[in-house]
């Protein structure tokens, strides 16, 4: 069997002060993440699986963070979601 390229998941946020740290946290936790900047919008693509960690964001912003706050600046996403108190994960099931 040929190895097939992993399908990408993505998440897009409004460009603003809050999401600057969120994007930075995503880049730190997902080494293959590709960040694309559009007018007023930032989109992050990642092959297969993308994880957003509460602790990484908290370290960057210096306060407690509830992952549900992501809702405030979210524009769109693609992938299955698994959310807990500590992590927000987007993934595709690979074959």
């Amino acid at each position, binding site marked *: 069997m040929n190895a097939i390229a992993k*399908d990408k998941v993505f998440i897009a946020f409004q460009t603003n002060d809050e999401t600057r740290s969120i994007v930075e946290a995503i880049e730190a936790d997902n080494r293959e993440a590709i960040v694309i900047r559009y007018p*007023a919008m930032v989109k992050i693509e990642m092959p297969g699986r993308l994880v957003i960690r509460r602790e990484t964001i908290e370290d960057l912003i210096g306060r407690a963070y509830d992952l549900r706050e992501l809702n405030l600046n979210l524009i769109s996403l693609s992938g299955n979601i698994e959310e807990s108190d500590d992590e927000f994960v987007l993934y595709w099931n690979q074959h």
Partner: protein
Amino acid sequence: MNMPTNPQKPAKKLSLKENYSHLTRGLGWDTSYQPMDKVFPQDKFEGIKIHDWDKWEDPFRLTMDAYWKYQGEKEKKLYAIVDAFQQNNGQFNVTDARYINTLKLFLTGVSPLEYAAHRGFAMAGRNFRGTSARIAAQMQAIDELRHAQTQAHTISHYNKFFNGLHDYTHMHDRVWYLSVPKSYFEDAMSAGPFEFVTAISFSFEYVLTNLLFMPFMSGAAYNGDMATVTFGFSAQSDESRHMTLGLEVVKFILEQDPGNVPIVQKWLDKWFWRGYRLLALVSMMMDYMLPKRVMSWAEAWEMYFEQNGGALFNDLTRYGIRMPKYHEVASMEKHRLSHETWATFYNYTHAAAFHTWVPEESEMKWLSEKYPTTFDKLYRPRFEHWREQQAKGERFYNGTLPMLCQLCQIPMFFTEPDDPTKICYRETTYRDEKFHFCSDGCKDIFDNEPEKYIHSWLPVHQIYQGNCFRPGTDPTAPGFDPLAEVLQYYGFHVGEDGGEYLGSPDAKNWKAWTGKPAVSE
């Protein structure tokens, strides 16, 4: 008593999962005075079998307290910006007044769908017997009402300065091209609750709305429209939740019973094609109506459907689901869709509540670059011809009424999948009557549910039957002008709302009020 032993130490907070589980499991109950089947009479007739409603999980696990808190924050943010926009005459900071026509199309075509979605989800919430499904539908019903309201509030400011925005609900229920979005949504709302959520939450919101909102909102930002970006992004933040719901709904239905798979596949085929046809309006907005463009329709289709949609359907193959039927036709059409659509509106703009125009030379150059195999060969010569005619004072308007597709209600201007120079016609005979379609996709949908679509309210038929005149109109009166009368019935201000952009009151006002040219360079 259950008093905490140490009053200094608060009880441990429930985890997200526990909280959500209490809301969606603990608060539900089965009725006892009446059988559940009588209380929820609509969630079985579509043939979908649900064995365990508790398997329905909302991955965002939003509880009511969090819902109100975050929605409240979104509203405060939005209205602060809308206030600032209005106080600073932000309407004059957009690229040029051509841009406003995208708002006219949005307000008359899309905002009423937000309201329809509010109604649709309220009904779906009533009709599902599973508690978490009901809660998800209820939250979405409230979200959609918020979208309809925030859009009306935001765009109402533009109504003080530009034409065509004065009566969008009246227009939505009557105008020929607005019957396209209206009939699309009413088709979904008049289906059963499972088809409704598959159509709207999955096929539309998950598979297709990125094509509407992402380029449109980014486009609004790029064209200086701060107010629209803001309501768009505010709505979109809810939309991400709706999309997630859409994927979860489909997975839930598919996992419940293997017999559900072919039913869902049929809905996916139908609603992909219906949604794709609806997006023809978006394609022309992206390629022609935004003075500053973010990306072309073809690029957006490749990114959001072919790549992201492809990944999504790869994920669903494990359930036995395949890509929606005719997706390859949509991809074949991506290099011509916007050009064919804009040309049609150029023809009929005197009967529309927004303006059209011939693209500037620099814009045609962009179109040639984005569409190297089609634009110069097939579409540029037509625009150049129209531009010459306009220069001679003979701006072309089409005085006839077009034939409409019985299903999508769009004029029959789409071309054969393998021949962009030949109009595509399909027909079916049902009960001795002939029905016409723009595509195999639309014909298949009709053939599957003919009794539903023989009732379609087709604007052109209705005009010819005399149903689109104001009460008391006498069509036999001497000098009766049917077109002028229809436009009155639509609630248009004739000579202001539609027609050619150059020389329109909007274009003149723009120059007078801003000192900037009607067409930006």
